[in-house]
Structure formats: C-alpha cells, structure tokens
C-alpha cells in the first residue's frame, strides 16, 4: 500500500464532455488525500468505441497515442472500468504485431487503474471520510466486474460512507443494455434491458443508484427520467467526494 508521488488523471471522453462533475469529484477525493495530481491536457479518447465497433486500425491509432501521452506517468487512474479494460486487455492485443509497442502497452496497462480499484487495493483505503445519507444500491458494470474482476472494492468503499445504507439489488451484475453503439443501433432491445435494470433498482428500495461507468449511468439515468422515476444516479466518485449533486 504505497502512496505515489503523483497520480495522473485519465478522464474518460464521456466524463470530459458530458459529466465533468465526475472528474471534479475525483479531483476532490485526491486533494482530500493530499495526493498530487496531474492531467495530460492532450488526452482525448482511449479508442474503445472504435474497438467495440470493429474498427481496430482506428482503435490502435488511439492506443498508440494514449501510450505516448501516458507512459511517463507514475500511476494512471480512471473513473471508468471499460476504459481501463480497454487499456489493460485490448491494447496489448491490438499492438501485438509490433513487439516494441506491445511491451509499451503492457507497461502502461500495468499502471493503469480504475478509481475504486486504486483506492481500495493500491492505497488500501476503505474510509474516505465521506457522508451520503440514504439507501443506495450499486450497479456492477460489465467490464469492471467481468473483465477486471472488480466487484468488492466499490462496495467496500460505499460501506464506509457515513449514513449510507448499501442495499443490493437483484441481478446487480446483469448488463444495463448500454453496450456502446449497441444502445443506438438496437435501441429497442437496449431499452428493454435497461428497463429490467431499472425495475431491479426500484425493487431494491434504494434512493440512489451508484456505478463506476458513465456510459451505464447515462443509459440508466436517461431511461429513468423518461419514465419519471425519481432515483438519483451517481458515479462512485461523486458519492466518495461528499455527494454533492449537480
């Protein structure tokens, strides 16, 4: 459990453009921990959308750029499980025909962490001094839970938030139906899946649903507001930073 000299922020494109408050919450968390931060301003996108749609040349180009921008970092932390899975699991595969880039990809992947993973496993923290009253349930996003195997860490952190009552929903790790381009290419199926997810959230009795992936949260929130359901949808970072709603 070592403290770094500097944490480099890898801010998912969705967070940068649509949910900057999540990035801000991350900054508050690290500031409270007195861990110096840096943010490479030239970062854009890890390439996942291209990869998921099959456009591997374009994804590889994004990968090379990411590696160039981030490989000098001591440690890289990102508020998105799917982006971290992209870097750790798919970058080496995309660049496997270039031994040098492949090695560099492996090296960058080994120091890229998802936020809850970093806080709980690397820093060994469980209590960040946060307060967030009410019943909350946690949604396991696919890449975080299955590809990265991260399920306990967010829960551990949530359990130590003061006044937060963590309730489990049924099928917490069933897909919410986002799937990137799937959500716009097959919208009816996608909505059917998110409806199931929302029904489970409602059944859990929670007032807030927390997740670690902005894509999932955007999908869940978008459908919830359309259905007129008044449950807060928040990123883990926002809850751990003190839970100020935007």
């Amino acid at each position: 459990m070592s403290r770094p000299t500097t944490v480099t922020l890898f801010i998912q494109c969705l967070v940068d453009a649509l949910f900057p408050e999540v990035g801000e919450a991350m900054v508050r968390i690290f500031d409270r921990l007195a861990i110096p931060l840096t943010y490479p301003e030239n970062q854009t996108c890890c390439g996942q959308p291209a990869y998921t749609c099959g456009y591997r040349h374009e994804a590889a180009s994004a990968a090379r750029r990411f590696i160039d921008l981030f490989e000098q970092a001591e440690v890289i932390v990102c508020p998105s499980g799917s982006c971290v899975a992209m870097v750790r699991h798919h970058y080496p595969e995309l660049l496997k025909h270039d031994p040098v880039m492949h090695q560099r990809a492996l090296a960058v992947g080994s120091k890229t962490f998802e936020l809850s993973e970093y806080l709980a496993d690397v820093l060994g923290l469980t209590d960040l001094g946060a307060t967030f009253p009410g019943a909350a349930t946690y949604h396991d996003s696919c890449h975080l839970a299955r590809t990265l195997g991260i399920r306990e860490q967010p829960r551990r952190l949530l359990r130590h938030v003061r006044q937060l009552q963590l309730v489990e929903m049924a099928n917490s790790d069933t897909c919410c139906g986002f799937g990137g381009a799937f959500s716009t290419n097959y919208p009816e199926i996608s909505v059917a899946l998110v409806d199931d997810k929302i029904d489970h959230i409602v059944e859990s009795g929670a007032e807030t649903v927390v997740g670690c992936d902005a894509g999932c949260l955007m999908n869940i929130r978008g459908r919830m507001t359309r259905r007129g359901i008044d449950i807060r949808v928040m990123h883990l970072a926002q809850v751990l930073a003190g839970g100020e709603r935007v």
Partner: protein
Amino acid sequence: MIHRSSPYSEAARDGMHNACLQKSLRNLQARYGKGALDIWQSLPDPGLRHRVKARRMQTLAHLDQLLALLAEGVEAQGGQVYFAATAEDANRYVRDLARKHGVRRVVKGKSMLSAEIGIDAVLAADGIEVIETDLGEFIVQIAGSSASHIIAPCIHMDRQQIGRLFADRLGIPYSDDPPTLTRAARKALREKMLTADMGLTGCNLACAETGQISLVSNEGNIRMATTMPKLHVALMGMERIAATLDDQRQLLQLLTRGAALQKLSTYVSFLGGPRREGDPDGPEAFHLVIIDNGRSRILADPDFREVLACIRCGACLNICPVYGRIGGHAYHSPYSGPIGAVITPLLQGINRHADLCRGETLYGACRDICPVDNDLPRMLAALRHKLAYGDPAWQVRPHNRLEALGFALWQRSISNSWIYEMLLRVVRALQRPFVNPQGVLDPLPGLKGGWTEGRDLPPLAAVSFRERWRTTLGRGRAQVPARSHKEQHHDA
C-alpha cells in the same frame, strides 16, 4: 446506422411483445442460468472446465484421425459411415437411403443439425412423412413454427395455444392441462414411433475410443427412434467427438448440467451399430452421417476454431439478457442465443447475419457460463472487425461505409486535441436550440434518434472537465509539461 427494420429487429420486437415468451424466458433464465453458474462455482474441481477445454482443442487438432478411428469402430460393429462435405451431400445420402429401403415414415429425435441442413423438406418432397417426436419440437412442427430455444423449443407458446393446436390437429377435446396434453401427444407419437421405417437423430457426442455415439433425452423419444424402426440414421456435426470414453463422460456430465442442471438426463444412450446376433430388437441398419457444411472453414481459422468446442448445452441462452428479451426466432437460425450469434454468421454468411454479430452488448456472462470455457464475446468482437473492413478470406464486404467513414474521421479528431476540443465547442454551440427546459436534448432524428426514442440524452456540459482543469482545478499544481504526440520520439 440504425437497423430498425431488419428481419432481426422486427423479430426481436415480436419477441419482446410476446408476453408468454417473456414470462417463460424470465423463469427459465432465473432458474437455469443462475443454477448453472452456481454448479460451476461449487464444482469440487475448479479447474475442470479449463482442462476440458484443453482436451477439446487437442481433439480438434486431431479431428481427422479421430473421425477415421470413429468410422473404423462403427464399421467394425456393422454400421455404415458417410462423410458429407455439404448439406446437399448429406441430404442426398439420406434421401437415397430412404428410397432404397422404401421408407415412408420417419421419426426424428431433436437435432439442430437436421434443421441446419434442411433434411425435412428433402424427405417430404419424396412424399415421406417426417414426424418430430420431442414434445416441444412436435408442437412447433404441427404449429408450422420453429424452435425458439435449443432445449425448450416451444417456450414461446402458452398452454391455451397448445390446447387449441392439439384440439385442431390431434382431434382431441380442448384442454389446456399440460399432463392431459402431454398424454395426448404420448399416445399420438407412440403410434408413429412404433410404425416408423426410419429413426433420424442427431448425435450429442461420439467417442473415437469406443466407436459409439451418445444421445441424451429426458422424454425417451430418442431411445424409441433408435430402437424400434428398422433403420437408424444419425446426423453428426464433425466436431462432436470425444477422444476417449473418459472425455465423453466428462463432456456429457457438463452437457446435462449446463442444459438443465441435471447430473444426467433421464436417458443417455450409447450405440454404434445395428443389432447384433442374438439381439431381439434394435435397428437392422445404422448409418452415421458425419457432416462438414462449413465447419472445416471455421476449424481452419485460429480466431474461431474454439467455437467448435461447443457441446450445445444451451447454457449461454439461459444467461444472455439479449436472448432473454428477444427470444430465439430473431436469430433466424436453428442456433440461437450467444452461440447462435457466432456460429450462424460463420456457417451461413457474416454479412447476411451482420445483426447477429452486432446485436449484443458483449456483456460476458456467456463466457462465464460456458462449460467448455468458450470466449464468445471475443469471437463476436472478431466478427465485428471483419464487418468493419471486410475480409476476402471469409467473403465479407465492409458492412457500412458511412460508419467506416465516421470512424476514420473520428480517428482524425481524437489524434489532435486541438481539433477535438474545437469539435466539442462546435457541437456545444449547435446543441443550444435543442436543449429543452428539463435540461436534456429534444428527441433527435438520425444518429442519436435511436437513443432519444426511449431515453433522455444529456447535452454536452457547458464547461468540459478539460476546461475546468485549465481554468480552476489545475491551477497552482506542479504541471507535467503536456507531451504533444508530434514531439514524441519513438524508442527504436
């Protein structure tokens, strides 16, 4: 980019609106999907599936030798073996056999391979009566429909529909009581099974060591079809072979657990030839038809070879939320669910079944539940890769040139942060008239229309994270100089 009116989407919509199907699938998945995962998690030997997969891959690497051994074994028992390169070859062989033996009535055990090659129509064209004997298959057959689940074929029909169907087609008084309906089918089909000239089955798993095939069922129809008629023809996908009896045993045990949480199905039959001297029953002739029909091409591609390890248990169907909503008919294939989404394009055309390659979230539960550790999401991603740029080896054309252009432009924009930020600012400016009082975007046509039909879409934030960092968040911090991509020198 939006495939709203494709056969896939239309059939998916029908499935989603079929209340009976939805209820049945929900129950099925809650029970069998979770149940199978629990079984794997509580296996005394956690490395079992991994080892079994390794054996499957070794078996595939030796497939030609093992099939040759199997054929020798069957022939030594008095059976006959035909190697059919294509569906046409297989159909012709079986039709000629039926003609030679004066077959007028065929009873079938459930076989997806038989649906894949289309044997029913070929035999029917010769005036042969072909009867499905698995209750679910029988029901969809007389309803003129098709199976919507590998293990539970008529899951999309409710008891009232089946009651009306039986009243109409079997001439019994209307009833919607499952035991009554089952007894009616039992009686009607017994007659057929006892008077059929030929039994036509699939093959769950053959064994090279013993020269015998194994067949599983709970109903007993397969035992009937392989015991009472004079002729038994078994259709076998060429990859459905185990090297040793021990391999076969392990695979059967995984199959029955994955399919229906059973340690063993009610009946597991092993056979490899016709009746022997002194046997009072059993077929007089046994023909094993080993079928390629596109499998060797899959075998030759290291990216997809592992899909041939599949033992068709159906567990992936029981855990997939997409299948769980759209049902089997949307796949337009005898193979539905996650396995169907991979194998159907590979067997029948990747462009033709582009929706199957793209219509999933790559969630990953199917990989968790597969008893032979198959990585279906990886293969779906590989299929999408082929659709993106085309692939002459698989005769794939790029699937959507507009989308390809979109991503080419996307690549330009993300490789230069100045362009990227400029684009975001432009969109931010353009979106202003479309942001409604609730703070979300009005429903949009085109690109984002798919989203906004059912969900609210947030607008781009007024100030991005990058801008906030630049103006406030990042102030007063020790800056690491931004490395421009252009400056980067590559370590050789």
